C-alpha cells in the first residue's frame, strides 16, 4: 500500500473519518486503539506475518521496560538490557544480515570446507524492521540510562512503534518524542492541519515529479555505464543525489504531514543536506534521526571523544561503518559507511583549517562537500563494489556525452532542484503554501492527487523501503 496508491487514499480517508468523526475526541483511549488497529492493518498490507515480528518486538520492549528502570538492582537491569538488545538486534541481524553473514562465513571458510555453496535460507526482510528495532533499542537504552520513565501502557507503546506514518521508513522516533503526546488528546488546530496538508502535498510532488523522473535516468545509466560518456555518468550521479534526497525527504514530509492530520508530531529528518559545508555538517542535515541515534547510542557508548583523539577517530569510523551496514547487507554499504567515516576523521584531524570563512569559501566548501557526498552515493547506489568501480572508471575515462532520451528533462529538473534546495529554507515552502487562500490550496491538493493517481509509477516504491 504505497502512499501514492489509490488504496492508500481510501485507507487514509477511512482512518481520518473514523478517528475524527466517528470516535468522539473525549474517548482518547478508543481513538488510540483505533489508530493502532489501523496501523497494523496498514503494516499487514505488505505481509500479514511481518506484523507478528512487529508485535513481538513491541511486547519484548514493553515487558522489559520496567526492569530497566534505575530503581531496580543493577544486575537485573543489565540482564534485562542484554535480553532486550539481543532479542531486538538479534531479530534484525537474522532477518537482515542472516544470508550476508552466512555467505561471507562460507567464503572465508572456503579452503577448509571445500568451497561449498552456503545454504539457501531465502529470508524475507520484514519491511521497516531496521526502523522499529532502532526505536525499541533507543527506548530500552533511554530507560536504562534513566533518561526516560518506562511506559506503563502497552497501547501507547505499541502505537509508538506501529504508528503508520513512520513505521515503514521513519523518521526514527524516540520514545521521549512520541509517548508524551499519547498521554492526553492532542489539540488539532486549523493551522496545524493546513501545514500538514502542505507537507503531504510537497512530499508527493518531491516523490512523483522529481524522484521518480530522475530515477528513470539513474536506473538506465547505473544498470550499465559502459556505453555512456563521463558527462552522462556525472549527470546520473548528480541525479541520484537528488533522487534519493527527494525520495526520502518526500517520504518524511508525507509521514510528518500524515501524523499532523491526527494532531501528532514527528521529528524532522532533513535540513537542506546539500547546503552542508563539511561532512560533519552533512550528517547534521541528512537523515537526522539516524545520525542522532548513531551518535547517542553507538558513538557515545563506544566512549565518544572522552578517551583521547586516537580512540575518538576509531569510534567515529566504527559508528559510520555500522551506519553503512544499517542501510543494507552488502559490502558496498559498508564501504559507503567507511568512506563517510574516513571523511569525518579527516575533517576532525584538519580541524579549523578547513572551516570556511566568508561567503565565497562557504560556497566553495558546499561545492566540495556535495561532490564528496556524491562520490559516496556511487558506492551506495551501485549493486556491488565492482559496479561502483565501473561507474568511477567511466567518470574518469574520456568520451562524449551520449544523447539519451530524457536527459534534457533530467537536467532541467536538476536545475530546479538545485535552485530550490539552495535558495529556499525547508520551512519556507510550506509556510508560504499555507498563506495562500484556502480554496486555492484545495485546488492545488486536488492537482497533486490527480498527479499521483495518473502519473505515479506503482512499481516505484520509496528507496528507503528496502532498508
Amino acid at each position, binding site marked *: 500500500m504505497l502512499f501514492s496508491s489509490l488504496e492508500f487514499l481510501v485507507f487514509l480517508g477511512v482512518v481520518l473519518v473514523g478517528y475524527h468523526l466517528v470516535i468522539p475526541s473525549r474517548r482518547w483511549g478508543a481513538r488510540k486503539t483505533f489508530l493502532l488497529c489501523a496501523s497494523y492493518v496498514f503494516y499487514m*498490507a505488505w505481509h500479514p506475518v511481518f506484523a507478528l515480528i512487529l508485535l513481538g518486538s513491541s511486547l519484548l520492549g514493553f515487558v522489559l521496560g520496567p526492569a530497566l528502570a534505575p530503581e531496580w538492582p543493577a544486575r537485573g537491569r543489565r540482564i534485562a538490557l542484554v535480553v532486550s538488545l539481543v532479542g531486538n538486534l538479534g531479530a534484525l541481524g537474522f532477518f537482515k544480515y542472516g544470508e550476508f553473514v552466512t555467505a561471507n562465513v562460507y567464503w572465508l571458510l572456503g579452503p577448509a570446507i571445500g568451497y561449498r555453496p552456503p545454504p539457501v535460507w531465502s529470508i524475507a*526482510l520484514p519491511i521497516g524492521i531496521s526502523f522499529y528495532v532502532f526505536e525499541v533499542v533507543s527506548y530500552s537504552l533511554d530507560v536504562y540510562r534513566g533518561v526516560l520513565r518506562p511506559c506503563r501502557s502497552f497501547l501507547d507503546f505499541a502505537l509508538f512503534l506501529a504508528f503508520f506514518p513512520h513505521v515503514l521508513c521513519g523518521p526514527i522516533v524516540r520514545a521521549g518524542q512520541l509517548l508524551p503526546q499519547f498521554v492526553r488528546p492532542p489539540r488539532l488546530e486549523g493551522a496545524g492541519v493546513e501545514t500538514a496538508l502542505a507537507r503531504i502535498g510537497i512530499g508527493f510532488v518531491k516523490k512523483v515529479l522529481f524522484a521518480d523522473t530522475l530515477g528513470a535516468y539513474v536506473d538506465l545509466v547505473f544498470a550499465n555505464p559502459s556505453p555512456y560518456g563521463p558527462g552522462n555518468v556525472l549527470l546520473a550521479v548528480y541525479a541520484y543525489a537528488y533522487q534519493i534526497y527527494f525520495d526520502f525527504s518526500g517520504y518524511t514530509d508525507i509521514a510528518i504531514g500524515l501524523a499532523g492530520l491526527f494532531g501528532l508530531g514527528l521529528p524532522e529528518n532533513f535540513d537542506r543536506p546539500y547546503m552542508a559545508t563539511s561532512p560533519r555538517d552533512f550528517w547534521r542535515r541528512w537523515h537526522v534521526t539516524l545520525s542522532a541515534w548513531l551518535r547517542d547510542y553507538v558513538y557515545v557508548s563506544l566512549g565518544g571523544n572522552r578517551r583521547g583523539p586516537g580512540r575518538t577517530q576509531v569510534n567515529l569510523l566504527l559508528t559510520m561503518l555500522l551506519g553503512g551496514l544499517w542501510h543494507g547487507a552488502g559490502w558496498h554499504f559498508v564501504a559507503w559507511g567507511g568512506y563517510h567515516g574516513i571523511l569525518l576523521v579527516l575533517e576532525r584531524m584538519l580541524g579549523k583549517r578547513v572551516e570556511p570563512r566568508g561567503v565565497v569559501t562557504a560556497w566553495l566548501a558546499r561545492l566540495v562537500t556535495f561532490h564528496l557526498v556524491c562520490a559516496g552515493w556511487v558506492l551506495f547506489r551501485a549493486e556491488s563494489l565492482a559496479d561502483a568501480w565501473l561507474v568511477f572508471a567511466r567518470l574518469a575515462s574520456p568520451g562524449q556525452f551520449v544523447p539519451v532520451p530524457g536527459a534534457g528533462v533530467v537536467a532541467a529538473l536538476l536545475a530546479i532542484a538545485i535552485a530550490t534546495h539552495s535558495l529556499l529554507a525547508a520551512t519556507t515552502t510550506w509556510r508560504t503554501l499555507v498563506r495562500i487562500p484556502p480554496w486555492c490550496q*484545495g485546488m492545488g491538493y486536488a492537482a497533486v492527487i490527480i498527479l499521483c493517481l495518473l502519473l505515479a509509477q506503482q512499481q516505484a516504491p520509496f528507496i528507503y523501503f528496502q532498508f
Partner: protein
Amino acid sequence: MKRVWIVTLSCGLTLLVAASVAIGWYWQGGVAAGRHAYRDLLEVRETLERPVTRRPVVVWLGDSTIMGKAKVSYPRRLEERLRGTLDVENRIVATGGLHFESYFCLMGAVLTLKPDAVVVIANPTQFRGPAIRPSSHLCALMPRDHLPGAMWRALRPGGVPLSTLLSLRLLGVPGVRDPLFFLTGLRRAIQSALVWDWLGTKATEEGKGLLVWGGDRGDARLAIVDSWRNGLGSQVRADEPVMETVRATVRMAARRGVPIIVIGHPVPYDRLRAEAAYDPADFRRRFPFREAVEQAGGLFVDLHDAVAESGFRDRWVHLNAQGTERMATLLEPVMRRVLARPEGG
C-alpha cells in the same frame, strides 16, 4: 478549522469537476483502453470459465510463444497430432508477457477445471528481474480458498500485497469494474501521451535489457542490447522469489495429484553460440528450473536448445512453422506418456 473545511471542500470539488470532465471526455475510450490493459485477465477468465467438452483436458499456461494458430502454436499442433489416438482438449491459457507470477495466480483457477495434466512454459527471456508486465491483477481470478495461501507466498519480494490482492477482487464486481477500467485507461492514455515522447521521458517496455535480435529487420544480426546479463544472460538464483514461485506453482498441482510438466522454452542457442558466449551447462546453471520443478514434484522438459535459429520467426523467441513442428515432435511422446499414466486418465 474553517479554512481547513474550505481546503477540503475546494479539493473535493476540484476532483469532482476534474472527474466529470474526464468522464465526459473519455469514458468510452478510457473503459476500452482499461479493458485492453486487462485483456489478459478477461481472455483468461473466458478461457477458464468455458465448460470442459471432452477428456482428457490438458491446460497449457504460457505466454505469447504458444499463442496463435496450429501453424505457430505447438500445443495446437500437438492437439492435431494426437487427434485420433488421444482426443485431447488442449486448453491454452496464455497471453503476452505471462510468467510464473501469473501462473501462480492462475493455478488455483486452473485446478478447478480438474485437468488431466498441466503444462507450463518457462520462457528464459521472462526471467530478467522485474516482470515487463506486472500481472498481479490476475490474482483477481484466484479461487477464494486460495487467497490466504497466496498472501504468504513470495510472489515478489514481500509477496503480492494484501491490499492489492483484495482490491483487485473488485475486478470481479461488474459495477466496479468499469470505473477501474476507466481509471486504468486514463492512466495509460496520459502516461503514453505524445508529450512524454517530446520530453524524451517515455518509459518503453522494449529495449530495457531485452535481447534484441535483428533477424526480423533483415540484418540478421544478434545484438545484445545494453545488458546481456539482464536478458538471456541473467542469472536466476535458486533462492530468488521467482524460483520460489516456480516451486509453489508446481507444488500446487502436484499436491492435487495433477501431473505438471514445465517446458524450458527454446532460445536461439546456435545464434547465441556464434555471437556470444553460450555454453549449455552454464545456461542450465543460470536457469536452475530442473531442480526447482523436480523438488516440487513436477516434470521438467528442457528444450532450450531444441530449435535452431531457423525455427524462430522473430526476436521474441516466437517459433515459426518449422520450430513449431519440431516442438510438437519432441513433446508428443512426453504427452502420450503423461496422459497414459493412471492418474493422467
